[in-house]
């Protein structure tokens, strides 16, 4: 039987919706100019932009995906935080924010225009705009599917209600609304998941009990088995991990993705903008305990006898018996195909790891607390959508509409366009959610293309900010070349056990087999990055440099170092960075 949320659970969700909408309505009267709507008038204090910086990325895919990864790979999943996100956050705060915030660019593509040229901005703006609306659609689809599976909600209802609420509050309050709700969601996730981790750990006998139950040393150490891809469950070796994930992918995401950078751009001062990612880094470091541990626990605990049993997904008795034969692992149910049958590959039942965390919620939370947990999940889905929507409407309005379609309209017109693009951005996202539901493969292909586009980005920004000789032609063709290199590398390699297609090898020949999909992805990124650097440097040296006066405030060597007088030494970006760095090394050592 499915968990039956009670009146109390729904009350919590309804109260949350009320607050979310209320914030939108209250903020409406402050939205007077386009800068209010798209940049929050650059007036938000650092603690709020910091939590929003973290939370904008903390969509439900992250919460659910990290739980799934924890169940699959164990504590090594923490690499996404402790070698991935956090070092990149330190870097963007200390070294890149001075250019983003200091150049007064209103978006990441606009920085590219100031630093390089129109075509580089166009390439970035258009690919980013397309990516965000589709990501928002994928997020919606995932939410609809989960609520349908878990609670038996109607898919259409779940999509419609969430889209309408997100539309209402971003339409009314713009970026400020999105940021405020992201902070609300941050506290919901933290306060909704602490009791889950507490109960789960208590049940298995703490970290030591969990280690004993998992029974695999490689699942409970993050670095010890990274010497060779054969010895760790991720199938990745340390170089691919550090360079691919740690350097190229994480820095690429946290340092160049407008979804997160926009939060810092809304800060009330340069110091606040630089502190934004550093403040975010503190909770980010601790998130593995909140989101990875539940997944690991889900793999080793027994289902409660009377409680929810997701194997009864399709309610027919026949399906139930089928699945009981093909038991899952812990409380993680087997993956079901369209007809409700468990998927079996190579004689083994495939597990639906994405359900690890949701199953933990229904396993350990009694009615009441369950409402809080579900509310946290729904909130993270919705703030993911809102984050994408606000990033989209800004890039659309400033970089595409004002950049190419209507250059000279009044500010009020752009504010109006911002609101309109919020509406049609969300409409496209809803459409994408339905496409994803119908044709899963299309979404896989799209996400693959996005990965190719994103892979070389960090190289362009790095060269742009720290090498004054880099030129617009160099950046543009470096980006294109990097994207093509990513596609080509993916096209001639294949992870073990896959057939040519979306997983790789689509160019006809397979030159190399990777031990895992993750290893392949990391190396795709490394190839794209390297190609982009080489091409950009080469073409830049062959083309005419821009005069240095034009690059003041855009390039490291031509910009005065930012000063932080307004805050005490303890709150200065550099101090925060040192504290984060020390804690980070400590965490890596403890779970070595």
């Amino acid at each position: 039987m499915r968990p039956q949320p009670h009146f109390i659970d729904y009350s919590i969700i309804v109260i949350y919706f009320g607050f979310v909408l209320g914030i939108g309505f209250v903020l409406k009267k402050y939205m007077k100019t386009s800068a209010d709507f798209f940049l929050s008038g650059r007036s938000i204090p650092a603690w709020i932009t910091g939590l929003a910086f973290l939370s904008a990325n903390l969509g439900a895919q992250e919460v659910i995906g990290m739980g799934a990864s924890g169940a699959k790979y164990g504590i090594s999943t923490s690499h996404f935080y402790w070698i991935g996100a956090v070092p990149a956050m330190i870097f963007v705060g200390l070294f890149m924010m001075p250019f983003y915030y200091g150049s007064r660019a209103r978006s990441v593509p606009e920085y590219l225009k100031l630093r390089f040229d129109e075509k580089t901005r166009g390439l970035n703006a258009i690919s980013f705009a397309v990516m965000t609306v589709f990501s928002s659609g994928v997020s919606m689809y995932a939410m609809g599917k989960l609520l349908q599976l878990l609670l038996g909600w109607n898919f259409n209802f779940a999509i419609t209600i969430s889209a309408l609420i997100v539309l209402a509050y971003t339409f009314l309050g713009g970026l400020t609304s999105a940021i405020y709700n992201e902070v609300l969601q941050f506290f919901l996730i933290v306060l909704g998941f602490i009791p889950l981790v507490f109960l789960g750990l208590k049940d298995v006998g703490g970290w030591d009990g969990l280690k004993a139950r998992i029974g695999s040393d490689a699942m409970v150490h993050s670095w010890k088995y990274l010497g060779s891809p054969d010895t760790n469950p991720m199938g990745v070796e340390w170089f691919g991990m550090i360079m691919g994930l740690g350097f190229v992918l994480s820095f690429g995401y946290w340092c160049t993705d407008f979804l997160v950078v926009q939060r810092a751009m809304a800060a009330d001062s340069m110091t606040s903008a630089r502190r934004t990612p550093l403040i975010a880094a503190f909770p980010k470091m601790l998130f593995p305990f909140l989101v990875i541990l539940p997944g690991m626990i889900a793999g080793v605990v027994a289902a409660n006898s009377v409680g929810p049993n997701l194997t009864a997904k399709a309610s027919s008795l026949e399906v139930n018996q089928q699945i009981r034969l093909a038991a899952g692992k812990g409380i993680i149910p087997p993956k079901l195909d369209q007809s409700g049958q468990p998927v079996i590959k190579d004689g083994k039942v495939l597990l639906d790891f994405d359900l690890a965390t949701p199953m933990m919620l229904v396993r350990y939370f009694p009615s009441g607390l369950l409402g809080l947990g579900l509310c946290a999940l729904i909130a993270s889905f919705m703030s993911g959508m809102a984050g994408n929507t606000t990033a989209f409407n800004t890039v659309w309005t400033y970089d595409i509409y004002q950049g190419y379609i209507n250059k000279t309209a009044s500010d009020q017109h752009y504010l109006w366009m911002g609101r309109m693009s919020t509406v049609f951005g969300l409409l496209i996202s809803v459409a994408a959610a339905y496409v994803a539901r119908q044709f899963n493969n299309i979404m896989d292909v799209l996400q693959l293309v996005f990965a190719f586009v994103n892979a070389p980005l960090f190289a362009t920004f790095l060269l742009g900010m720290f090498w004054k000789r880099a030129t617009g032609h160099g950046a543009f063709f470096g980006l294109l070349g990097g994207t093509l290199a990513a596609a080509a590398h993916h096209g001639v390699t294949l992870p073990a056990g896959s057939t040519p297609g979306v997983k790789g090898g689509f160019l006809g020949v397979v030159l190399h087999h990777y031990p895992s999909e993750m290893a392949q992805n990391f190396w795709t990124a490394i190839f794209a990055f390297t190609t982009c650097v080489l091409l950009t440097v080469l073409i830049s040296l062959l083309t005419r440099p821009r005069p240095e006066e034009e690059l003041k405030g855009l390039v490291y060597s031509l910009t005065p170092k930012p000063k932080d007088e307004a805050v005490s030494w303890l709150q200065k970006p550099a101090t925060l960075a040192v504290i984060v760095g020390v804690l980070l090394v400590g965490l890596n050592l403890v779970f070595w």
Partner: protein
Amino acid sequence: MGIDLRLPIGLMFSAFGLLLAGYGAATHGDDMYLRHSLGINMNLWWGLALLAFGAVMLALARRGRVRAGLDR
């Protein structure tokens, strides 16, 4: 901009805390705590924790308002 965010955060979590703690007190000893939360009345305890968090946020918002008043 506009509103002190600590105010809605404080209000919302206080409301959640009251709801959960009240519900926990009313359902004390219910079977569901045995089935789900290892026999602990998590609604009651976590409800009280949320209430405390909400109260701290409200107190901070109030202090902020008083300070803003003094500045003016």
